[in-house]
């Protein structure tokens, strides 16, 4: 078993494409999308093969010891803190590896078509490979700093890809926002590491899991880790970056902002589930935040008109589902949903990408419609994704999502309110997804004449991944999770069945309502409600934190720095100068005055000796 290929292949892809790109800037010859995309895709496919191979090797190990560590090199070692660059494969990371490399390969392939006309595809593929490299590091790292390496790395790649078209300040701003909000979450990660180092003495996950901490610290650690996850996985309070992140190329949204990176929060919670589950407070906070996020972003999604934004809010909402799974102590379900979600959400994003590609960068769903005929492959694969996210049996989402719903009620940490919120979120999910499907594919066309004519189905490089993912969305749930298939079966017990039925029925009702409402839409809808603006949370952040920081900084710069510190320096100089000028006053030029001052001084000295303090000098 050698894990290094797994991560090295994307790295090489990144380096080769990077060098190709830099060379192209010197001799101004474009590297074709086929070449660079080919390199990147091959790297990813090989990496996928390695992941698959390692997955099967891991399966052959006995159930208790399904763990493989590979130390690449010692990283840093100082005064009792020793961290190595170790890759660790266990069932959890194995699943994530498969998802990342698998979905990743498909999206790479898709990108060849999507980025065909881009000016510098080599740069794009380099970034994409870099992302995969970092993401693999994230899931394979055996220690917290290693995970953090990947954690920050994916943030970086996400930044680069969101702001890929950096001529547009808005896109640049979106990237910046994503990166900064991620970094805010990272404080949690960092402090969690400090706590772990202080109280555990090691940053290895196994060590951390095996060392019992006092309850207070456990809660703190868990909450800090969760805070980090809210950043990366776009949960309340740090979720507003994800919709903006849609500024990047659509395959990027599919890969990073739907399938992989945003789920790293779930990965981290799963990785540290021992610690998380040791504290009921942490769990309830996670569940509450997850549920709220799921519900609120579902509401927002219902009001969106941008196809990618709808999907983005949907992602946030689905991530909320996963967090609820973690929050009720049933991480497995969360991870399961990560996998299925990766399939169907990637599929939907790629489908959306296909639509956008076909419509020449049109993203408003009210300017689409009737594409079922024109884009049949896209439509049918999209329907598969739609069915999966609605949780219709036997599509993959059905298994994972219902599992979460069931657990939110049945688990020891679950409760009725939680369950109801989740059901509502599921209802809304079905509503807005159907709305999307209807508006884009089924309703009458609202496209402009010129656009309508040129619409055509995407090339094979793009539709092939769609079809593969479509199949995965259908069958992805059947296998269950390799980690714990039995548990899934067992959990779907008596009341489980009722919940399943209820949720499916609810989804169908919602879908019906949506169809009724939007099936006949013929004109552009003007929605200007608060939900559409994300309840103004983003605006609030911007004005409160963004401008707040700016104002504080300006205040510091003007008041403290200029008025206090610099002025203090100036005053010191002025005081010295002034005292010089004052002392100079004595220099009047008149001999009499000089003599007078001199003799007064002499008199003072003598008098002091004779009458003043000097009395003690006599004996």
């Amino acid at each position, binding site marked *: 078993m050698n894990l290094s290929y797994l991560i090295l292949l994307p790295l090489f892809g990144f380096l080769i494409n990077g060098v190709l790109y*830099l060379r192209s*800037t*010197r001799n101004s010859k474009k590297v074709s999308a086929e070449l660079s995309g080919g390199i990147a895709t091959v790297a990813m496919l090989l990496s996928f093969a390695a992941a698959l191979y390692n997955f099967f090797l891991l399966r052959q190990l006995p159930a208790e010891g399904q763990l493989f560590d590979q130390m690449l*090199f*010692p*990283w*840093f*070692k*100082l*005064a*009792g*803190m020793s961290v190595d*660059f170790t890759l660790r494969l266990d069932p959890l990371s194995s699943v994530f590896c498969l998802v990342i490399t698998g979905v990743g390969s498909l999206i790479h392939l898709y990108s060849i078509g999507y980025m065909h006309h881009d000016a510098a595809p080599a740069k794009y593929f380099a970034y994409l490979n870099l992302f995969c490299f970092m993401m693999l590091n994230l899931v394979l790292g055996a220690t917290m*700093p290693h995970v*953090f*390496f990947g*954690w*920050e*790395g994916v943030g*970086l790649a996400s*930044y680069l890809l969101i*702001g890929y078209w*950096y*001529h547009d*300040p808005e896109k*640049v701003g979106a990237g*910046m926002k994503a*990166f*900064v909000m991620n*970094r*805010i979450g*990272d*404080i949690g990660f*960092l*402090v969690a*590491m*400090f*706590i772990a*180092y*202080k109280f555990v003495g090691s940053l290895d996950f196994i060590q951390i899991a095996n060392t019992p901490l006092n309850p207070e610290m456990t809660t703190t650690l868990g909450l800090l880790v969760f805070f980090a996850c809210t950043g990366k996985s776009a949960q309340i309070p740090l979720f507003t970056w994800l919709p903006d992140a849609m500024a990047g190329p659509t395959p990027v949204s599919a890969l990073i902002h739907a399938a992989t990176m945003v789920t790293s929060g779930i990965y981290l919670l799963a990785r540290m589930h021992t610690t998380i589950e040791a504290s009921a407070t942490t769990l309830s906070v996670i569940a509450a935040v997850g549920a709220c996020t799921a519900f609120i972003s579902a509401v927002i999604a219902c009001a969106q008109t941008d196809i990618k934004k709808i999907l983005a809010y949907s992602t946030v909402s689905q991530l909320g589902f996963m967090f609820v799974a973690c929050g009720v102590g049933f991480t497995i379900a969360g991870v399961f949903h990560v996998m299925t979600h990766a399939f169907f959400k990637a599929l939907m994003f790629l489908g959306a990408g296909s639509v956008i590609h076909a419509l020449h960068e049109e993203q408003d769903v009210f300017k689409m419609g009737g594409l079922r005929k024109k884009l049949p492959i896209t439509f049918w694969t999209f329907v598969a994704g739609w069915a999966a996210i609605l949780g219709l049996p036997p599509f993959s989402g059905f298994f994972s999502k219902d599992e979460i719903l069931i657990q939110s009620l049945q688990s020891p940490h679950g409760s009725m309110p939680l369950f109801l919120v989740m059901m509502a979120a599921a209802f809304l999910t079905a509503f807005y997804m159907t709305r999307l499907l209807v508006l884009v594919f089924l309703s009458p066309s609202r496209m402009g004449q010129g656009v309508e004519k040129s619409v055509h189905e995407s090339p094979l490089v793009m539709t092939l991944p769609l079809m593969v993912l479509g199949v995965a969305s259908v069958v992805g749930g059947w296998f269950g999770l390799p980690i714990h298939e039995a548990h899934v079966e067992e959990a779907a017990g008596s009341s489980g069945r009722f919940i399943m039925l209820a949720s499916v029925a609810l989804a169908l009702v919602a879908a019906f309502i949506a169809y009724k409402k939007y099936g006949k839409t013929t004109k552009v809808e003007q929605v200007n409600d608060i939900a559409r603006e994300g309840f103004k949370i983003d605006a609030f952040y911007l004005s409160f934190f963004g401008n707040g*920081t*700016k104002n*504080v*900084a*300006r205040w*510091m*710069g003007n008041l*403290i*720095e200029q008025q206090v*510190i*610099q002025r*203090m*320096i100036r005053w010191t*100089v002025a005081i010295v100068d002034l005292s010089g000028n004052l002392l100079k006053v004595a220099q009047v030029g008149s001999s009499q005055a000089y003599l007078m001052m001199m003799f007064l001084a002499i008199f003072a000295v003598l008098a002091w000796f004779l009458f003043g303090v000097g009395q003690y000098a006599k004996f």
Partner: protein
Amino acid sequence: MLNFENTMTLANESLNVFMVVPLALCILSFLIPKGLQRAYAIAGAIFFFALSCYEVSQGLGGQTLPWLSQFGIQLGFRLDSVSKWFVVLTGLVTFIAVYLKGNWYRKSPRIFVASSFFMAFALNAAFLSTNLITFYIAYEAVFVPIIFMVGIWGTQTKAASVFKFFLMSFLGSIMMLVSMFYLIYLYQSQTGQYSAQIFDLVQVSKSIAPERLCLAFFGFFLAFAIKVPLVPFHGWVRDAYVNAPMPATIYMSGILSKLGVFGFIRFVLPIFWDQAIQYHGILVTVAAISVLYAALLAIQSKNPRELLSYSSISHLGFVMLGIFSLTSGGVGAAVLLSVAHTLASVVLFMLLHFMSERKEDLTLDRFHGLAPRFPMLFVAFFIAVLASVSLPGTVNFVGEFLVLSFSYPVSALCTVLSSIGVILGTVYMFKFYQYLGFGSPNPKTGAESVAKDIGVFEISILIFMLGLIIYLGFQPAVILRGFSS
């Protein structure tokens, strides 16, 4: 008590090359014709850097030469696991400083080259000396070339900044000198002999009631806090960095600030250990305030140099946090972070210089869109920015992470507050990068339009520097090894 001195090999006795070579280069530079000064300086600096690396690789060492021994002033030098990195950095920074092209090679280049090598000489003497007075002399001597550099090649408002820099530094250092005298006097009153050797004075400080050394401690603290600088002793930094010619700025940010860091490690901690513990809370708070305050100032600044100068203060706040954690780990991490900061800030200033050579106006209030025009430059710039925001994979991350890890157990609150500086750092560094690189390119004017991307030699230097940053990011053990015992 700290014990980070590696006592294994002290065989290397040829330490004087660290001083003799730059001094010789300094004197020789007066014999070189004006036109050849740059070539001479580059060749000399490369030679000096290579020699430094070679000598450092020969192992640690100590050497004592007599000077004014009857007054305790020896030329005591010692290359240990702390100083060796600073010595190497001196060589590196000298090379970068003399490499940059600018009006310093048009207007009296001899003085510039001589100043640079003199600076290297003084810096090495300061980094190596084990004698307080020798250290002080070298520490003061560093002013001289800086004054010349800023004075001759600085911007219009240079005079005020020179004075501010000089006076604040001088105030600090002379207070340190008085404190040194006090220590020497204590030693003399105990043993009857003068000694300014650090080892002797450490003995004295241990045998004396801690209260008696408080003022002396603050004397040292003031000197180094101004040099580093720590908020609120940073008043000189902005003007000096902005108005100085780029080589001087690189010296100041890259290595002069490390002189303060080094002083804390070499002198303050061993001698004033008890006082450091006593005032630990204040020290850590000051460091945390430096981090946050400077980061906020950087956010609001529109001038790239100003931004980088504040970012320097902010990052050095992390270094100081590591030192003030008063653990050997924290100190080791601080050394690592110092190296990291030197590399990153030198690269950033160098790139800024390249940019300002190509475009006059780099105000950070609009997008300049330079990245598509100078892709290589901006790739390097981006990596340097990443290093500066201490992204994992760069040595800055390891340094900062270790610093915070070691300071967390002693002061959780300050550590967490400092961590916020990381976010702010991201904000201003990315803003900095984005404003310069991103957006649509503006219509070019005049000479600007013919500006080309950086050349091969520049690229090689950048690859070397950035490679070092990344290599050390994965193999920080190269530096940390000396501190693990």
